[in-house]
C-alpha cells in the first residue's frame, strides 16, 4: 500500500480563558492511496481539529499546532512556507465541510466557485476551467450540468449543494480528500446517495479519503481503517472489521452498544433499555490525572488513575490506549 499522508504525534492547542487546552493530543495515523480512514468520536473529541490541522486551517490565535509532523509525499506540511501550503490546499489535499449551506458563497454562481479553484491551481484558461467544472458536476451526478453551472447556491437543494462542494473539492484531482461530517446535515436518502458517490469516486480517482463522522454506521459501511477519538486522544485504532467485531477499548464498546440498532434480516426482539456510557465527556480544562475515560469506564482500575495509558498493540494492526484486556 502506498502511504500518502503520515501524521505523527500531532498536538494542537487552543488558548482559552480556562488555560491552554490540548484539543488534539499526540495523534498519529497514516492514510493510504485508494483507502478510507474513518475518524469517529463525539463532539469535542478533536476529530475536526485534526482535519483542520492537516490543512493548516487552525485559526491562530487562539489555536496553534504545537508539535508533531504531517508528512505528505515526504514533505512536512507543518514546515512549509504558507505560499507553498496554499498550492497544496484545494489542489492536492482538499476538504468538504459539514454545512453545504454556509460553505458556498451565496453571491457567486456554482460555476464561478468551481472554476476559481481550478484557475488558481492549474494553468488553464477560464473557458477550459468552465468545461472542467461542467464535467465535475456531471461526475458528481448533477442533472443538466451545463445549466446548473450558472445557478446560484440558493437555487440548489441541500443534497445538490453538497454535490457541488464535492465537485469543487475534486476539481483539481486531489490525492487526499478530507470529508468532515459530509452528510450530517442531509436526509437519510440523500446521505445514501452522497456516500455511494464518494465511494465510487474514491475507486475511480484512486484518492485517499479521510472521513470524519460521529455515525458508526457510516464508518462501518465506508471506512477501511478506523480511528476512535476521545477527548483529544486516539483510544482505539484498527481495521474496520476488526474494530466492529472485536472492539477492545471500553469506550468503543460502550459507543457501539449504546446505539439502537436493528437487523432487517432477522425478526428482532425488543430490548427495552439501551446500554449507556454513564456521565458526560470531561471538559478539556478539567481532565483527570491518568486515563481520560476513567470517570465513565466500567472497568476502571487503580492504574488508570496514575499514568495515562499509551497506545499498545492488541492484535494485527489493532491498537488501544487502555490497560485492561477485554
Amino acid at each position, binding site marked *: 500500500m502506498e502511504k500518502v499522508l503520515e501524521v505523527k504525534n500531532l498536538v494542537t492547542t487552543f488558548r482559552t480563558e480556562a488555560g491552554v487546552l490540548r484539543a488534539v493530543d499526540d495523534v498519529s495515523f497514516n492514510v493510504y492511496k485508494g483507502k478510507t480512514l474513518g475518524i469517529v468520536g463525539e463532539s469535542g473529541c478533536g476529530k475536526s481539529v485534526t482535519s483542520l490541522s492537516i490543512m493548516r486551517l487552525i485559526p491562530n490565535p487562539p489555536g496553534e499546532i504545537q508539535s508533531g509532523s504531517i508528512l505528505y509525499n515526504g514533505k512536512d506540511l507543518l514546515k512549509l512556507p504558507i505560499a507553498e501550503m496554499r498550492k497544496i490546499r484545494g489542489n492536492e489535499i482538499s476538504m468538504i465541510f459539514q454545512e453545504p449551506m454556509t460553505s458556498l458563497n451565496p453571491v457567486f454562481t456554482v460555476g464561478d466557485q468551481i472554476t476559481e479553484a481550478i484557475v488558481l491551481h492549474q494553468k488553464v484558461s477560464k473557458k477550459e476551467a468552465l468545461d472542467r467544472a461542467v464535467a465535475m458536476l456531471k461526475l458528481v451526478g448533477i442533472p443538466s450540468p451545463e445549466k446548473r453551472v450558472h445557478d446560484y447556491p440558493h437555487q440548489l437543494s441541500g443534497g445538490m449543494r453538497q454535490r457541488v462542494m464535492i465537485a469543487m473539492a475534486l476539481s483539481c484531482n486531489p490525492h487526499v480528500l478530507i470529508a468532515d461530517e459530509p452528510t450530517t446535515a442531509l436526509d437519510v436518502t440523500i446521505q445514501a446517495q452522497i456516500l455511494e458517490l464518494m465511494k465510487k469516486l474514491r475507486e475511480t480517482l484512486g484518492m485517499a479519503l479521510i472521513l470524519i463522522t460521529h455515525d458508526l454506521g457510516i464508518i462501518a459501511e465506508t471506512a477501511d481503517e478506523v480511528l476512535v477519538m476521545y477527548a483529544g486522544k486516539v483510544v482505539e485504532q484498527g481495521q474496520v472489521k476488526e474494530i466492529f467485531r472485536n472492539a477492545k477499548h471500553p469506550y468503543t464498546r460502550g459507543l457501539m452498544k449504546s446505539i439502537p440498532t436493528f437487523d432487517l434480516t432477522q425478526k428482532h426482539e425488543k430490548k427495552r433499555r439501551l446500554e*449507556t456510557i*454513564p*456521565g*458526560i465527556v*470531561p471538559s478539556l480544562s478539567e481532565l483527570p490525572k491518568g486515563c481520560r475515560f476513567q*470517570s*465513565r469506564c466500567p472497568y476502571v482500575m487503580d492504574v488508570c488513575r496514575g499514568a495515562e495509558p499509551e497506545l499498545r498493540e492488541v492484535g494485527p494492526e489493532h491498537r488501544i490506549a487502555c490497560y485492561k484486556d477485554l
Partner: protein
Amino acid sequence: MSEKATVWENHPASHAEGKSLWQDAWIRLKKDKLAIAALAIVFFYSLIALSAKFGLIATPWDAEVGKAYSAPSFENTKLWLGTDIFGRSVFYKMLHGTRIAMSVGLVTALIAIPIGVLLGALAGYFGGWVDELVVWFYTTLSSIPSIMLLIAFTYVLGKGIFSVYIALGVTSWVGLARLIRGEFMKHRSREYVIAAESIGAGHCIRIFRHIFPNVVHIVIINLSLQFQIAIKTEVILSYLGLGVQGQPSWGVMIDDAKQELARGVWWQLSSATVAMLFIVLAFNILGDALRDSLDPKLKKG
C-alpha cells in the same frame, strides 16, 4: 440508580450558586480596561452633576468672582478656567453644565425607553395590524427632520429645560423601538417561547418574563448611545437659542463664545467642548464594550 449517580459526579459543583448571564457579562466587562475607564468617567460626571444639583460644589455659579474675561489662573479654584463677560467663574459654569447635560441624558432616556420598548415589543411580538400601526407611526415621525420637530416642540412648550426633556424624549425612541421590534420578531418563534406557550403561559408572561430579559441588553447598549446623543442635541439646541434658559449649560457656553473668540477669549469654548468630549467619548466606548460583553450571540454554546 448507578447511572444517576454518575450524572451527578459530572456536575460542575465547584460553586453552589449559579452564575447568570449578567454576572458573566460583568466579569467580561471588568477585563476591558478601557470600558472600566469609561465607566469611571461616567461615574465621575454623575457625581459632579449630583453635587452641583445639591449645591455641594460650585455655588453660587452666578456670583462675580473677578473682572470680566480674566484669563485662567491658579490663584483661586474659581479662576482656574477664567471668567466670562459678567466676571462669573467659567469653571463653576462648566460644572453646572455637567448637571444640565447629565439630567437631559437621563430624563430623555427615561421618557424614550418605555415608549420604545413597549411599542417595539408589541409590534414585534404580535405582528399583523399592530405591527403595521406602530411601524406607520414611527416612520411618519422619523420622516420629519428631527431638528425641525425639536424646534416645533420648544415653540409649543416654551423655551427651557423642560421642553428640551420632552422634545428629546418623544423623538428619540424610534431607533430603540426598531431594534426591539426586530429582536422580538426573532425571539417570538424561538423554542423557549413556544415552550412557555406549551406550559400555558399567556402573552403577558411570554413578552415580559421570557422575551424581554433576553433583549434588555439592547436597551442598555442603546441607553449609553442615546445618552450622548441627548447631550449633543441639548448643546445644539441651546446654541440655537432654543434650549436651556438662564442656566449654565455647555451649549449656552459655546453660544456665548461666538462673540468671545474674536477677542482671544478661548477658555469658555474650550472648557465646554472638552467637558463634552470626555463624556461623549466615554459613553461611546461604554456602548461598544457593553455590546461585546452583553451580547449572548458572541458567547459560544
